[in-house]
């Protein structure tokens, strides 16, 4: 079971929206037993990252910063705007 985390300012609104969208995409592909997305608070990101396999970020993350993280970082903004969503989803599915 892969643990996907989505972080936003409070772990309540934006992140929960994206997590919910990812989960329903997984469900519709019959993959909900292989991975699950969870909304977390960005202020405690390091804490949550210890138990996570993939980080979906909804703040623009520079490449240098991405390399600091120990797990793969994906861009979550397409899940909100719809633009480029298929590409990100494909990247995500490859990782699980």
């Amino acid at each position, binding site marked *: 079971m892969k643990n996907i985390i989505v972080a936003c300012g*409070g772990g309540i609104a934006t992140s929960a929206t994206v997590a*919910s969208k990812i989960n329903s995409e997984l469900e519709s592909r019959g993959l909900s037993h292989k991975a699950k997305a969870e909304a977390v608070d960005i202020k405690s990101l390091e804490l949550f990252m210890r138990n996570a396999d993939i980080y979906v970020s909804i703040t*623009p993350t520079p490449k240098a910063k991405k390399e600091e993280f120990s797990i793969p970082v994906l861009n979550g903004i397409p899940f909100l705007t719809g633009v480029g969503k298929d590409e990100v989803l494909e990247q995500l599915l490859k990782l699980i």
Partner: protein
Amino acid sequence: MELIASVFQSILDLGAAVFLPFVIFILGIAVRMKVGKAFSSGLTLGVAFVGISLVITFIMGNVGAAAEQFATNTGIQLRALDLGWAPALGLCWQWQYAFIMFPVQIGINLILLFLGWTDTLNVDMWNVANKIFTAFLVASVTGSAVVGFAVAAGQIVFELKNADATKHQLHELTGIPGISMPHPMFLSNIFFYPISRLLDFVLPAKSNLNATNLKNYIGVFGENHVMGFIIGTLIGLIGGYSVGAALMLGIQAGAALTLFPLVSKLFMTALTPLSDAANTFIKKRFPGKEIVIGLDWPILAGNPEIWVAIILTIPVALGTAMVLPGNSVFPFGNLMNVCVCAAAFMSTRGNLIKMIIISYLMVPILCWSASDFAPMLSQLALDTGSKLPEGQLMAWWGMDIAEIRWIVVSAFEGKGPAFAGLVLFAVLAFFYFKWMKKEEAVSLSHLEAGA
């Protein structure tokens, strides 16, 4: 007819936690969700409601009671405990007219898009609650939900116009094209932007602080459980608890601040499938039209300046609250106050010194407005099943657009100075949108030079 009315009334009487899941289920079926999924979404909302009440009752029983001891021990009468934005907006969804705000926001947005008066499509459904809160406050003082909704409608229009008026700046700041931010907090920039410009005269040119370094040192204090623990323990110690009891209070406070997000995010889990359906419906009707997607603020949350300014405001907020005449609020749950600092991040273009100054200037206004609104919020909490200790109120210190809401609600209460505030707001808003045109042109030229 009478029969229908009485059926409706008896469903309403069941309470929001039973009634609204039912509404979500029906709406889900209407937008062709699977029955099981619609049922699950509806129930999740009911679970969120009960969860919020549970945590409010828990925290008010522990930290609220300790704040009472604190008052007795020190003579500082802060009877309204700030629980933060998650429970406040969570309660708003349970206001009896809350869900009417969905069609109101979507309807106004569609009309403005059709008329070409906006290019923003606001897909941020969580912050519908921020309009509900405005409507609720105005309805509480005027006794009329219609007036409340009229003011909220005005807020929706302002939010969309502001989102349009800042989209190139947002593109430059975040590097993401095609988005805007119709979040109400950015309306505070009508006040913050002129302050930021005035500060240019006072501050030496190009003065700034390195936020990344600072955040590495103090970032840990911004974590919910850490901050809850520190503040909770302090309240206990000053309230005359034994060290052991004060530490236990600290852990309880940390637990409450950690639990609020866990229950509040269930709202979005329940509402996302519905808002997806609504958005698909709208986008289908605007094929080929250039639409900017309006998002919530956290796309800015990766900027360390915001967190540093917030954390450096905490001691000032606590100190001010203790001594400020007319304040009755104990800032606690919302000490990590995004609403001022994230907005100021935009209007100062990330200048940390200016952000901190603006944040300090806002502290008294946040205290007074929260004190005024605490009785209304507490009534809503009591009406929806939370329990508050005798004599204690629940508050939301640091709400979004505190200054504007305070001016508007006070004007409806007939308070004289509020009318001067309305005039000031109108004048500054007029100039703000002119200034934004210039800022947009600057950002656009930067973007074109970069591309």
